[in-house]
Every structure is written in structure tokens, then in C-alpha cells.
């Protein structure tokens, strides 16, 4: 039997384990920092939504539209960007922070409600596409639906606004919205209060949206 350098192997194993632990430790710390940073963004955006809602409650005349519309557009852009970041972490890094996601869902719901209210006050002409999915019950189909909506968002007209709510996250307000529309199957899409259950392809979605605008 030939010589095995046990000491060398043990030392190498030990150092490798140290590098591995250091990597995991530092990496997880960075991930936590990112999740905390996103949490702060949610709080800051929630404040802005509250401020806009307060303005609307104080004065809901069309005179306020320039201010409301500008603020609402900025909020929506920031909420969307934050949503992409959270989804990116979930899809590519498998980092899913339930608490952060729950807060984000509430923020997105508030943004959606604000947007609908501004639409009424300022007679805006846009189409809302709301997707309900469940990260607990539906994975492949919901992911496919999300990708289809992503593509529409990327290349579609600016008057389409897309919101996606995870009903499996345990957010009470999202649950209320889901109950309101009797959502029982995932994914389900609401386009201007009309419900489409199951996966809806891109072509069909574009057709429905196009018809609504014309």
C-alpha cells in the first residue's frame, strides 16, 4: 500500500472548511444587508404612498392631478424596481424572506389602490393587469405566467400596469383582495375586474389588452 499524506489531507480539508465557512458567513451577511436595505426601501415607499393617499383624502379635485400623477408614477416605478430586485434574489439566489415579501405585497397593494383612485380622479386611461399566484401552491405555471407578464411589461405599451400578488405569503390585505375576486386557482389574472383562471399566453393577453384600449 502506498503512502497517504493524512496530515496534508487533514490540513487541506481544514483550510478548505475555513474558506467555505468564511464564504458562507460573509456571503450571508451581505445577503442580510441586502434584505435589510430592501426592507428600508419598502418602509420609505410606504411612507410616500401614505403621503399621496393623505393628499388625495384632503383634496380629491382634478386640480391636484399634476401632483398626484407625478408622485404616483414615481412610486410605481420604484415599487416595480424593488419587486424585480426581490424576485431576482428569489429566482437566482434562492433568497426568499417571507417578512420582506409580505411587506412588499402590502406596499404593492397600496400602490395599486392609489393608482386606481388617481385613475378615477384624473380620468386616466390605463389598463390594470393583476396576477394572483401562490409561491406555496403553484410554481411552474405561475413562474411561466410571471415571465409572460414580464415580457409584456418590457415591450408592451406604457398604459398597461401590471401587479402580481402572492396569495400564499400570508398577507391579510392581499387575502382580502383575493377573497373579493373569489380567487381559488393559481395563477389567476384580473384584467379590469374580469377574471382569467390558469395560464394565459402572451398573445391572448395582448389581444385582451388591445381590445380594452380600442
Amino acid at each position: 500500500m502506498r503512502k497517504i499524506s493524512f496530515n496534508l489531507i487533514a490540513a487541506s480539508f481544514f483550510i478548505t472548511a475555513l474558506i467555505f465557512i468564511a464564504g458562507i458567513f460573509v456571503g450571508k451577511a451581505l445577503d442580510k444587508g441586502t434584505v435589510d436595505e430592501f426592507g428600508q426601501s419598502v418602509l420609505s415607499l410606504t411612507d410616500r404612498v401614505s403621503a399621496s393617499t393623505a393628499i388625495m383624502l384632503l383634496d380629491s379635485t382634478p386640480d391636484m392631478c399634476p401632483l398626484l400623477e407625478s408622485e404616483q408614477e414615481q412610486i410605481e416605478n420604484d415599487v416595480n424596481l424593488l419587486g424585480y430586485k426581490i424576485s431576482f434574489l428569489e429566482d437566482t439566489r434562492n433568497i426568499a424572506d417571507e417578512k420582506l415579501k409580505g411587506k412588499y405585497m402590502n406596499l404593492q397593494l397600496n400602490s395599486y389602490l392609489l393608482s386606481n383612485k388617481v385613475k378615477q380622479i384624473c380620468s386616466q386611461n390605463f389598463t390594470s393587469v393583476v396576477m394572483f399566484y401562490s409561491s406555496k401552491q403553484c410554481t411552474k405555471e405561475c413562474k411561466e405566467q410571471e415571465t409572460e407578464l414580464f415580457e409584456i411589461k418590457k415591450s408592451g405599451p406604457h398604459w398597461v400596469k401590471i401587479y402580481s400578488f402572492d396569495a400564499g405569503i400570508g398577507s391579510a390585505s392581499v387575502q382580502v383582495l383575493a377573497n373579493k375576486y373569489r380567487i381559488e386557482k393559481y395563477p389567476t389574472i384580473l384584467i379590469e375586474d374580469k377574471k382569467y383562471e390558469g395560464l394565459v399566453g402572451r398573445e391572448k393577453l395582448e389581444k385582451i389588452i388591445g381590445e380594452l384600449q380600442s
Partner: protein
Amino acid sequence: MAIQQLQYAEYAIAFVTIFTFVFLIVAYLNNRGRMKEALGKPKRLPEVTVLVPAYNEEEYLAGTLKSLLALDYPKSKLKIVVINDGSTDGTGNVAAGFARFGVGIISKKNSGKADSLNVGLGKVRTELVATMDADSYVAPDALAKIVGHFEDRRVGAVASCVLAKSSGNFLGEIQRLEYMFTIFTRRILDFLNCVTVTPGPFSVFRTRALKKIGGYDPKSLVEDQEVALNMQQHGWKIRTAPEAMVYSETPKTFQELMGQRVRWQRGGLYNALKYRFLIGLKWGDLGVVIMPNTLLGYLFLTIVPIIVLISIMTSSIYASYLGWEGVRLSIGPLHIMAALMLLAGFAWLYYGMNEFYENERLSFPTVAVFIIAYPILLFIFWLFAAYMEVTKQAKSW
């Protein structure tokens, strides 16, 4: 779930890769003082036959033979034999021009390098036999510095230090560094009795040992690795001679390099599979670390591009929204580990190689570029090699 399974695979690959790096670094540190240890003057100079298989090497053969004739070794103890493997150019004429200097010539139909070497080996009667590529040049004192190793009866082969004749361009520089890196790591493996290549440009064998193991395997595209593994299997020691320098021509264009490396990769895979039984405790460090790592290396070279492709596909839908922010968010534990490993690897190569090669200073950026560019090139070559293996394309030397 798929992303989670992917992460497990990534962590497993990372652990094995880091372990291999660390193992080499620790082995280096353990033997640092002996890296340049040279043998003293040999007690005697045994008879040596140098076999030079040549296939269409008219451009370089004369230089190779001149360097052999200039060896600082008693002429009465040195035989040089060119094996013309059915060359279609002027190789035969070049060899014939050296007949007046005592160079022997064997002419045969083309049958590949390994078979040519076997034909030559069948006629060798000297105690030692050296094999030399027909596009390499041996330093005058190389052979004399090698033969002393055979005073140890357990030594079956000795590998020389093959340096690349750099063409000065980027590819030439990468290859020059690669050859230096190979010598450096092979020297470390020597201390563990784990040398798995007796380089084609110039290696010396105990004739009895080489004949006993059956010579070269004509099916292998990388016969110098196959023969070394065969030696290991039969319990012969393979040593390296850090002071025996040999210079080899290297591919000048990317296409030539690709052809050579695809051949090496395919041959390497064949050898690794053929000698997979060398994995196990009874083979010592070779069976516990080096051979498992070689086989896993091929597996990783296959899996990593798939993982990268999946990651790119998953990230791509976010790319237009997140831009560079996406890069920042991508950084996780694996990147930290990779960074630590790269830093350690860089320090090891930069300081270790500069200490080992006193006359060839390596600059900071050169080593950095090598560390980044070389693995990428390896992946490219392997993808082509794997494609050729899967599509069962013909093998030739």
C-alpha cells in the same frame, strides 16, 4: 426547488475545487525548501537511446537533432533514433542528413506516435530510453542531470522541465505561463509520488520498466500521460528533474492551439477512464486525491457551463431592469469563496513561481491574467472535446 439543487451542485463543486487548490498549496509549503533541490553529479552515466518519433516535422526536426547532438553526454553512450512515421513532407530527408552523425532512422507506415514509439522501443538495447518530440530542443546538460535519478532502483521514469518557446503574442504568453505552471505543480506532485505525465518533449525511462509495462497504448491520444499512469499502476516511481530544461514549439494560432488541446482533453478523458481503478486507498495520495480529482475535473468541466447557462437564462429577464445592480445582487457566498481561493491561488503562483524560476520573473498582471484567462480557455477546449467525443469523431495525432 431546481435553483436549490443547482446551489447544492455549485457548493459541492466549489468545495472540491478549493480543496484541490489548498492541497497543492499546502503540499508546496510543506516542500518549499526542496522545490529546487538538484541531484549531485551522477555516479555513472548509463547508455541511453533517444527515440524521436516524427510525422511531418521537416521544419523543426533539424533543430531537435542538433540539440540532441549537442548534449553534454558521452557520445559512446548515446544513441539517437528518428522514427519517421510515414511523413509526407521532407522529414525523411532531414533525418537522412543526420545519418553521418550516427543518427539512426526507422522508416515505417503512418500508425501514430504511440505505435512509432513502440516500434522504436522494440529495438532499444540500452539501459535507459528517452523519448523526444521532433519539435523540441533539449538543453546541453539536461540528460546528465536526469540520469542520476535512476540510481534509485524504484524510479521508472524521469520527467524533464518543458518550457514553451514563446511566440510573444497573447497565446504564446499564456502557453509559456501554462508550461511553467505545469512544471511547478508537477514538481509538487513529485514529492507525493503522484506525477501522472512524462512529457512528450523529453522524458527518460528505465528501458526494462517501459518494456515490462507494455510500452505505449496506441489508442491513447495523450500517450505521455497514459504511459505515466501505467508506470504508476505498476509501482514505478516517476521523478521530476527541475534542472533539466527542454524547450518545445507551441501552437502559434488559436486554431492550432484548439486542435492540440482538444486532442489533449480527449486523450486525458480516455486515460482517466482507463485508469479509474487507480482510485482507492491502496494507491496512496494518487488514489485518494489526484485520480478522483482528475475524473471529477472532467465532470465539473461539463457541469459548470450548464450551471452558468441556466444562471444566465434565469438572470436575463431581469437584466434590462436591473443592469449592474443585478451584478451586485448576484454576489453571494460562492463568490466570496471564489475570491478567497483566487487570492490564495494568486499569491501562491506569484510568489511560488517567482521563487522557483529565478531567471524568469513573472509580473503581477501576467499572473492575474493567466489565472482568469486560462480556466476560460480550458472550458472552451473541453466543450469542443466533449462535442467531438459525443459525436464520435476520429482521433489522430
